[in-house]
């Protein structure tokens, strides 16, 4: 992951490859894989080639072609691997949700009930909305640095969004015990998913401004420079925020996510490991506290330790997920040939076990690699971009996906206690999908800045030296003072 050669201070380089052709090619490749997956599902489920199927394939192609042209138009130098990775993950998620729709319909037919509403059509609609937001973000946010001006605004908005479900009455905000929702009529959104991005913008802007403070003052202890107690304020605030989420919204995953992200941004901004150590101590303290104070946390830990001791009760979901994964084994049962629908919430929180049952370890490893490509491409943009705010922003946006991946997959596979988050782009869920598209748009914006050639200096007229005027060295049109970190 070496940073690309810095082009600063050199003569204008020949036109850089934009990578847009590769992107289109990879998108087509993703379309082939997704369509193939859909055909296998249909074959294994002994379905006819329905018009719905055609509709789904066309919707997929159309949506991502549109996204591609938006990138071509507004972020021509953006990383070419990010969008195809997202498209592939989203497409596989749609196929799996469609496959679970078929299982639900078959089940309803068996029970003599009416067929339930199609989740996949809703998810396609959410994908479309997500891609619209994606295009809007690419179009309106022409330079990611302008976001740093709205740091505090973003932070304030993020806090409100995060706190809102906790304040609202449970009838509006509570689904399955977690108060994370705002529901109107049939549509529900999880504002926390959007708060995630807003708070990353805030933390990045804030830390860029104050990083001198956090990285210089301190005292040495055991060979490490530790921050002064009074500088711990932001950490304490973030910790309080996480605990607040845990207490008022009863959601372990979101709580964990926010704390982890701030910790990593703090570390990236200050380059001091001591922040991590202090943060981890806070985390351990918080975890012990939560375990002792909250019954639902203790229940989660019990289920994690032995899901099968209470198989008919709380351990059923995780137990069924493990049965599914085990039954899938190395090669999987084949798409459409397993019984992933036996796991409750197979299409949202537990889509990983659904994929694991039917695609096996091989399929899951491939999907993990796609995620790895997406995340490392984001981090690579962080390395390559020249401004500190961009670096922190791209790091935060990439890492939040990584952390979410770890928390969700770790939870479903009994590596860590189950928390109840969705997998970015794979899981069923509108808010998560739409918010993650905004996230990816920002990531593409940063990567565009990282890969675009420097603004061309105006060509210097070849005038005799005697008549030469004083040369103006153009300073990039920056409005706030973040050019400071450009050389780090």
């Amino acid at each position, binding site marked *: *992951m070496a*940073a690309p050669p810095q082009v600063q201070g050199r003569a204008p380089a020949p036109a850089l490859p934009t990578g847009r052709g590769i992107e289109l090619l990879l998108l087509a490749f993703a379309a082939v894989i997704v369509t193939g997956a859909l055909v296998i599902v249909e074959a294994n*489920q*002994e379905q006819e080639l329905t018009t719905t199927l055609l509709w789904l394939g066309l919707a997929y192609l159309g949506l991502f072609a549109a996204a591609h042209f938006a990138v071509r138009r507004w972020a021509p130098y953006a990383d070419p691997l990010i969008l195809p990775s997202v498209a592939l993950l989203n497409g596989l998620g749609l196929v799996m949700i469609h496959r679970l729709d078929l299982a639900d319909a*078959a089940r309803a037919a*068996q*029970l*003599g009930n009416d067929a339930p509403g199609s989740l996949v059509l809703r998810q396609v609609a959410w994908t479309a909305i997500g891609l619209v937001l994606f295009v809007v973000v690419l179009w309106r946010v022409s330079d990611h640095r302008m976001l740093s001006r709205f740091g505090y605004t973003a932070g304030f908005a993020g806090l409100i969004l995060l706190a809102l479900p906790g304040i609202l009455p449970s009838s509006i905000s509570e689904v399955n015990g977690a108060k994370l929702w705002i529901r109107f009529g049939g549509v529900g959104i999880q504002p926390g998913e959007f708060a995630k991005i807003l708070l990353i913008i805030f933390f990045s802007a804030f830390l860029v401004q104050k990083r001198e403070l956090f990285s210089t003052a301190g005292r040495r202890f055991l060979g490490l420079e530790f921050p002064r107690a009074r500088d711990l304020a932001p950490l304490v605030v973030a910790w309080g925020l996480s605990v607040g989420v845990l207490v008022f919204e009863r959601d372990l995953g979101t709580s964990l996510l926010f704390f982890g992200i701030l910790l*990593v941004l703090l*570390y*990236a*901004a200050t*380059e001091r490991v001591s922040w991590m150590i202090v943060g981890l101590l806070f985390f351990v303290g918080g975890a012990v506290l939560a375990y002792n104070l909250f019954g639902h946390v203790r229940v989660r830990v019990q289920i994690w330790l032995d899901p*099968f001791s209470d*198989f008919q009760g709380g351990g059923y979901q995780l*137990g069924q997920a*493990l*049965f*599914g*994964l*085990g*039954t*899938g*084994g*190395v090669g999987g049962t084949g798409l459409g040939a*397993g*019984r992933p629908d*036996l796991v409750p919430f197979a299409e949202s929180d537990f889509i990983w076990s659904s994929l*694991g049952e039917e695609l*096996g*370890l091989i399929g*899951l*490893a491939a999907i*993990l690699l796609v*995620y*790895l490509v997406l*995340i*490392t491409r984001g*981090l690579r943009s*962080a*390395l390559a971009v020249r401004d*500190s705010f961009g*670096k*922190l922003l791209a*790091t935060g946006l*990439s*890492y939040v996906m*990584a*952390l979410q*991946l*770890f928390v969700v*997959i*770790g939870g479903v*596979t*009994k*590596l860590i206690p189950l928390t109840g988050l969705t997998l970015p782009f794979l899981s069923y869920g509108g808010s998560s999908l739409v918010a993650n598209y905004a996230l990816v748009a920002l990531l593409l914006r940063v990567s565009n800045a990282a890969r675009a050639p420097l603004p061309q200096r105006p060509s210097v007229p070849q005038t005799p030296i005697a008549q030469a005027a004083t040369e103006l060295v153009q300073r990039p049109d920056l409005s706030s003072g973040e050019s400071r*970190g450009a050389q*780090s």
Partner: protein
Amino acid sequence: MNNPVRKIAVSVMVMILLLFANLTYVQVVKADDYRNDPRNQRTAYAEYSRQRGQITADGKVLAQSVATDDRMRFLRQYPGGPAFASVTGYLSLSFGRTGIEGAADSVLNGTDDRLFVRRLSDLITGRDPRGGNVSLTIMPTVQQVAYNQLTQKGYAGSVVALDPKTGAILAMVSTPSFDPNPLASHNDKTVQDAWNSDNAAKPQVLLNRAISVPQPPGSTFKIVDTAAALQNGSTPDTVLPADPEITLNDGVTTLENYAHTPCGTGATTTLRDAFARSCNTAFADLVTSVGIDKLRTQADAFGIGQSDLKIPMTVAPSTIGNITTVTALQQSAIGQLDVKLTPLQNAMITAAVANGGQLMAPYLIKEIQGPELDTVDTTEPDRIGSAVPAGVAATLTDLMIGSENRTQGGGKISGVQIASKTGTAELGSKDIPPHAWYVAFAPADKPVVAIAVLVENGGDRGLEATGGSVAAPIGRAVIAEALKAGR
């Protein structure tokens, strides 16, 4: 700040490696445990999509899997319905499997070791794996007659018919019965409704009365008393008291004959007459001379108390109870107190007498066949042991002929001599209609079928019921059908 970003990237890779390592553990190392866990229904669902073998009896299909166009692929059907349910059992996705469906499951689903070679050839030829077939010893017409006999008057009860020479079970009926078809349905609501109504039914329908519920045998147990006495020096002419009522050994408890009648006209009677008339007082006296130990030895020799009997369904062990006093022995002699036999056990005792004293192990599976109906394994009759010497068996047969000839009730078959014993078992109080029993074999001189009939709680006669009036006609009809069918 590129340095920390690189380290963060490394931490991301570590997280993904951790996830991968854990996935490998779950999907490779622990995979078999998870796959084969009994709580994992996925295996059962997969099994449903294979063609399960047939259960047949004498060419009649009792259970078969037919292809459907729904996703479960094969629907289990029971053409015999309730009449054969006590044999076939049921196969249900939600509620397990019973009867032959449960006991011969590995053959029917094709995983039995004896089908290994067929499985291998299916694998090589790429054919969908199929289950093996089970061919039963049941004679469908005999089973049907027995079922009709019990159900036409709405009796709760059981009939078991054995081939005394081999132990082959020719009929095994339990009523009221249930229809296994809805329980095997692919429609969950149908299954649930059937399950609910089957479980709510009174008397219970999912119970196999032939093998699962030992009941007091009443006077049919006098066969065992007599077998023990004949080996203890008694003869049919041994003199026994004929009082209508006696006081038992403890000086308190009284015991009386049926309807409080004396045993014949004289002051004393003989064993032959007491057996034919089923006199309780005489048998109380008879077993006192035999003693507890010899009676228990005789009961054991007839297979009572055997706890590991499988036909292949597990048979509930019968018992004579924990007899410690002479009074208890005298009460046990007439098949009361703690003596409890399953109808199958009572049929085994009768069959042993019919078979010259040799007790054969009862069995239902005649042969196991491959998917192409080729024979894979045939059950060889298995002798459990000698219950009584041949001479004693002959004397018992003689006494049972005497009993049959004194027994009323309809259905006597002209030209065929039956040897039998009736029983009317009280259930603790004279206000509860008694169980009516009839055990018999025929023809007496060359037995080909032995039966036990139990009609619970007096059938349609209430408190007036006796083995002779309620159970005997059913037994004779079953015997007649068995003889007609070439037994």
